[in-house]
């Protein structure tokens, strides 16, 4: 029935040997990728192989959307138009007031000699698809290094911060959502001005402030915005709203759970913000007594400092 010799005559290396070979190859790659990040070139090459298929896979959905848009009735269009007009009117009022306030703020900043804030450039992008990885919260957008996207740029939608660009391929980029466990964002409570760092909480789709002092000035319904202190996120973008505060009698900390303001897991269009302002580099930590041997311990210490709320 087969036109080749029976498989037990022609085998090559034993299957178990091959399994061992490929398993060790995979494990080596895993370690290289997870620990040292040396595999980015290989990843880019493979991503280009996968790109046509990814683009083709989202094409039917785009096509259905286009057909739906074409078939939308006139009544609906008129209705939408009226609603949008009303919204534009309301927003233009806000915009006028914002301009006045901005001018005033700039003047005050000049008065106190603070650095002038440079406007943030935005680049619209479309979500291609969500990552197929249930362990992390990532999405892919249809803009890459060809369009000038840089790793680390914040990503927002019309309601607030969505996440941050973590990996840039030539034509697409990967955005880690706020709700990913490894994602941290410096925030500020609008009502009290309290600063904190919000972490994603994984599968629940919430963000949380861990290790807040038990008497911290925070309550349900408080709005969290970016503080802008890290230099990555522009200040004042809405991040989340506090929904629950868990106080544990045994610990002296409270855990504050909040719901993201942006449509982190819905919506199709996002804005990639790029802050062109040249910030002064963080000052080198001075090593007391000009002791150069302590060079090695510098890295972990600076990491610890990031975590405690700066």
């Amino acid at each position, binding site marked *: *029935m087969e036109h080749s010799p029976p*498989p037990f005559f022609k085998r090559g290396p034993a299957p178990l040997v*091959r399994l061992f070979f490929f398993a060790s190859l995979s494990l*080596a790659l*895993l370690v290289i990728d997870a620990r040292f990040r040396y595999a980015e070139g290989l990843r880019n090459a493979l991503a280009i192989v996968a790109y046509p298929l990814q683009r083709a896979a989202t094409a039917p959905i785009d096509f259905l959307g286009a057909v739906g848009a074409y078939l939308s009735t006139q009544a609906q269009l008129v209705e939408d138009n009226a609603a949008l007009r009303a919204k534009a009117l309301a927003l233009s009022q806000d915009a006028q007031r914002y301009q006045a306030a901005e001018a005033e703020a700039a003047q005050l900043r000049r008065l106190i000699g603070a650095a002038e804030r440079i406007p943030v450039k935005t680049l619209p992008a479309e979500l291609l698809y*969500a990552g*197929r990885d*249930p362990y992390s919260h990532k999405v892919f957008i249809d803009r890459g290094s060809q369009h000038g996207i840089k790793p680390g740029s914040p990503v927002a939608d019309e309601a607030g911060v969505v996440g941050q660009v973590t990996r840039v391929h030539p034509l697409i980029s990967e955005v880690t959502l706020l709700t990913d466990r490894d994602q941290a964002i410096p925030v500020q409570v609008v009502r009290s001005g309290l600063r904190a760092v919000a972490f994603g909480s994984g599968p629940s789709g919430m963000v949380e402030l861990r290790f807040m002092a038990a008497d911290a000035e925070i309550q349900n319904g408080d709005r969290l915005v970016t503080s802008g202190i890290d230099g990555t996120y522009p200040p004042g973008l809405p991040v989340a709203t506090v929904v629950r505060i868990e106080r544990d009698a045994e610990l002296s900390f409270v855990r504050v759970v909040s719901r993201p303001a942006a449509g982190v897991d819905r919506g199709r269009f996002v804005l990639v913000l790029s802050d062109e302002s040249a910030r002064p580099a963080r000052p080198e930590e001075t090593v007391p007594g000009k002791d150069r041997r302590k060079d090695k311990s510098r890295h972990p210490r600076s990491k610890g400092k990031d975590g405690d709320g700066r």
Partner: protein
Amino acid sequence: MAGRSEQLLRPARVRTIVASFALALFLNFLPWPDLRFVPDFVALVLAFWCVRQPHLVGLGVAWALGLVVDAGNGVLLGQHALAYSLLAFLSIWLSRRILWFGPILQAAHVAVVLVVAQTLVLLVRLAAGDSFPGWALYVSPLAAAVLWPMVTWLLLLPQRRLEREQTI
């Protein structure tokens, strides 16, 4: 080596195999709403070819496909490569046994193989410091196993001879 009532098949063509893998990757990359409930089509098609054509599709193909899936999904490079290598090994090892059974029992065997591969991915991610995403994770391999009879029918279609041809 084939099942009892199976008709004679033409030899599989490489073209069919390549096309089926491209289709499986395409299905994997569709924008699914919740990915834990969607079967991994690449793993399923890979298991199919490893069972049917163990000397054409083996661990090397599995490993390369795993890398493409890893890069396309933006996950740790090598986790699917590792899982697919094990999947291919188990499928090849069990291929003669699997082909002896009818479609339902074949699917049961494949379910076990897919669950083992999924568990391997889970272990890798837990070792890398991720949290457990819930038991819904195992819906995906079981859903894939349910599709096995349909995939078998579909992928053997190009190898079927016409009735007229068989009687000659």
